[in-house]
């Protein structure tokens, strides 16, 4: 299976005038729902009659459960799989709202895909969707690498002054590559598999504030499977009792090269320390973090150890911290002017 160059380039969002775009996205979302109906067992009525079909499709738990079950089916992911086709077509509508719908299922799709990649199962359907996401990200970045120039406090900034003369300290800033430049790919070559999924996850991260919590929880659950570590070793260290996972169940462990691990860690970081205050998400992310920490130790990979350990410690600090609300006024029995 391959995606032609023209398809890859057409995924660049073409400018549309606003009033057309609204009705357009409305119809496209309804079309997507309509084409989904023969694939799933039932479309919830709330969905087919919705005024905001795209956001309904994104947030409806019933339909999400049905799609997730189908994606986890042992035969999902083949080239002629209708659901994969639907995800691909839905993504290719180029409606940002519908992009979110596809991204919402990325954790399960990538999770099932990566765990099956070495098992000689047909995966062309999954790869089709992943390549579409990859192509979209490649186009929107124009193939450029994402870089960060690491600050150096000897240069003054908006937030601080520097006593040193910037002329004397003409030190070069360290430039870090967050994500290397992107080449267009028409097929998934096995050595590029991790990179393609990693870039899809980078795309997921850029939209993460709009993704439903459930999808993030699913992602964190897959992290545990991928890590192949149950993460219980550091549970007591963590002073927290949770459900104890089945020991020795390590199916689905995958290779975690940095190009895949880095976006995974950013997403887990968001789930742990991000602005949503969802208890279940936090707990699942803690579990994912513990598993990834164990895995990093197994690989003796210094930067993965540093990153996962710091997240792990932060989760502990967050859990144990008594929040003092500094914005609360002082309580006194005497109210005075």
């Amino acid at each position, binding site marked *: 299976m391959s995606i032609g160059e023209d398809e890859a380039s057409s995924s660049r969002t073409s400018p549309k005038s606003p009033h057309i775009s609204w009705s357009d996205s409305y119809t496209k979302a309804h079309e997507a729902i309509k084409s989904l109906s023969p694939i799933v067992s039932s479309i919830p009525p709330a969905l087919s009659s919705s005024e905001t079909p795209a956001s309904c499709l994104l947030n409806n738990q019933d339909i999400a459960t049905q799609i997730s079950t189908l994606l986890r089916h042992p035969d999902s992911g083949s080239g002629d799989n209708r659901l994969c086709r639907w995800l691909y077509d839905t993504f290719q509508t180029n409606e940002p709202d519908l992009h979110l719908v596809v991204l919402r299922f990325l954790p399960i799709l990538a999770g099932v895909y990566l765990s099956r*990649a*070495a098992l000689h199962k047909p995966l062309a359907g999954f790869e089709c969707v992943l390549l579409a996401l990859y192509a979209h990200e490649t186009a929107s970045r124009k193939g450029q*690498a994402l870089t*960060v*120039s*690491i*600050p150096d*406090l000897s240069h*003054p*900034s*908006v*937030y*601080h002054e520097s006593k040193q003369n*910037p002329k004397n300290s003409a030190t070069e800033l360290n430039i*870090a*590559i*967050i994500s*290397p*430049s992107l*080449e267009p*790919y028409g097929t998934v*070559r*096995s*050595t*590029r*598999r991790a990179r393609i999924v990693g870039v899809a996850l980078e795309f997921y*991260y*850029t939209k993460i*504030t709009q993704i439903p919590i459930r999808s993030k929880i699913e992602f964190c659950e897959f992290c545990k499977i991928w890590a192949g570590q149950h993460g219980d*070793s*550091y549970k007591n260290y963590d002073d927290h009792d949770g459900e104890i996972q089945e020991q020795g169940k390590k199916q689905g462990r995958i*290779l975690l090269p940095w190009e895949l691990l*880095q976006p995974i*860690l950013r997403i887990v*970081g*968001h789930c742990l*320390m*991000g*602005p949503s205050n969802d208890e279940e998400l936090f707990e699942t992310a803690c579990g994912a973090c513990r598993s990834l920490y164990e895995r990093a*130790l*197994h690989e*003796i990979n*210094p*930067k*993965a*150890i*540093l*990153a996962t*350990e*710091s997240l792990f*410690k932060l989760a502990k*600090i967050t859990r144990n911290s008594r929040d003092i609300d*500094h*914005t*609360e*006024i002082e309580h006194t029995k*005497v*109210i*005075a*002017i």
Partner: protein
Amino acid sequence: MSEEAEFEGSQFDDDPSIWQISANGVSMQTTDVEVKIDEGNIQEAESALREGLSLNFEEARALLGKLEYQRGNLESALRVFDGIDLQAAIQRMQPSLTEKQLSKKGRARSESNRAVSQHAASLILEAVYLKAKSLQKLGKLTEAAHECKNVLDAVEKIFYKGITDVSVDCKLQEIVSQAVELLPELFKQAGSYVEAMSAYRRALLSHWNLENDCCARIQKDFAVFLLYSGVEVAPPSLAVQVDGSYVPRNNLEEAILLLMILIRKAFLGKSHWDPSVFEHLTFALSICSQTCVLGKQLEEVMPGILTRSDRWKALALCYSQAGDEKNALNMLRKSLHQHEDPNDVMSLLLAAKICSGDSFLAAEGVSYARRAITNAQGSSVHLKGIALRMLGLCLGKQAKIASSDSERSHLQSEALKSLDSARALEPENSNLIFDIAFQYAEHRNLNAALRYAKQYIDATGGSILRGWRLLALVLSAQQHYSEAEIVIDAALDETAKWNQGSLLRMKAKLRISQSRYTDAIETYRYLLALVQAQKKSYGPGRKVIQKENDKVNEYEVWHDLANLYTSLSHWEDAEICLNKAKALVGYSEVTLHTEGIILERRGKHAEALTAYVNSIFMEPTYVPTKISLGSLLGKGGTKMLPVARNLLSDALRLDPTSRMAWFQLGLVHRDDGRLSDAADCFQAASMLEESDPVESFSSIH
């Protein structure tokens, strides 16, 4: 309303269950007022206060609202506050235009007014602030944010020059600080992330005269928000930038900047040390792979903040990631000292891993790995397999420099035993399959190596380049060159263009081994075209940024070509290629060695000798030069034979699997009349020839 008079006649001070309100020197119990307000008669309660304490309407409302807020009656507090016309109050307090102009000349007059207006201001602003707090607690976050923003807008209007220490009293300052801190939090809770972002920037970039700890809290919250929220908003505008200053271009840069500033502040004693700040910075910098910067931050950490063994461990991780294994190992040696933290499994494993990369450290690594096995208990029990793996790797490396054959084979079989028991504990760890395949290959147990190499490719789905390369090398060692080439072609199929360099190079070498020189040259030509395309696509500046991992190395291609042309006796071509290689790296032991070979093959022995000697000076442990020099000297008559023998033995000590060294040593023995020694050497050489890969196995690592 003098402050001293406030508590006069407050005889209820000692009773904690009764609320009191005091103003204008009078104090009253609020029991009656509370009854009225509980009945819903806000106006009656208000007038009771006004009469009892001689207050005006706004003051009474503000106090009443605060009372209700403190009593936890939030809805009622909101109703009370709703009666205050904030806009009017603010307008009254704003300095008029004439006053603004006057303020420079008539200082004294405005001073006298200030106390009055500040008092009124803090009363009203506190009322609005409490309104926001009430709304927040009732879950009406967007409205709360709106009210809180009103407080800040009002402050900016009233104090149009910004707040300084002398310009406001502490009561007002407290409200301002709290509102500044609350606003972004409210937006964040309301899910208005873009507004939260600008509220944070407003808090940090305007002059609110915040105290250090408050400012540090906001900076940390903002950094955390930037780092984890996933919201990407335009960086602070260029308008507020100073020339030559650092301008963060995205969230990550801004977050790292703020975290670094926070750490610096804590070191200078300007704010409390918050351990989570350092963890956030660790996360951010490791995500960027900038552990060298993190290392610098750790080096600057003040004593008493981290325990020294924790700091050494963290530094070791940073250095090791940054490629400075020597310093990393030094840190670990400190932290693993018996008086520090000698049983830390992570440190032991890292130390063993570093040692496994260097034959001369391997023995030290073996002892770390053994300690790790002993200490892999309790919460570290899951690391036992890894400890065994490290033991296997270190033993395998140690075998490389074993002084005797028996010691070598002992170490090698120990290494394999250790890897096998690691495998039993870690059946899903594909790295172990590779390690075992590699050990067998180094052993020249090629059938076993082949089996494991295939298994590794299966387990990894062919996604790891080194698996393909190992398989091809093992096949080439078995003299199955065309099969090896098929493997390389399969691998090329699974690899993107820019990562094909090492594969293509191996392919060319496989073709040379089959005496298909023209085909080999064709492959090299393709490689060079790839190099050109790569240069073009990355541009000159980008090369510095992009790590050249699996990329084509132009120098190696030219060098290979020089060797190839030398073996074909195309001297001119060989020299051209060699010069190209030299232009890229300057003089190195490798280019000097090749230069020597060309000279020697052309019969210029004295010049060849010079080149070889120079090469040895550049790198005394470079085996190919030792062999060439040994063989050249061996031809120089019986006087030179002992020197040649020394050089060749030395080469064999460094690389016991060098077929050429054995062969040359055999020649030396023969010329020296030791025929049985010579026969042994020739036998070794011929055995090795049957198992010689086109590149050394260790080139895979």
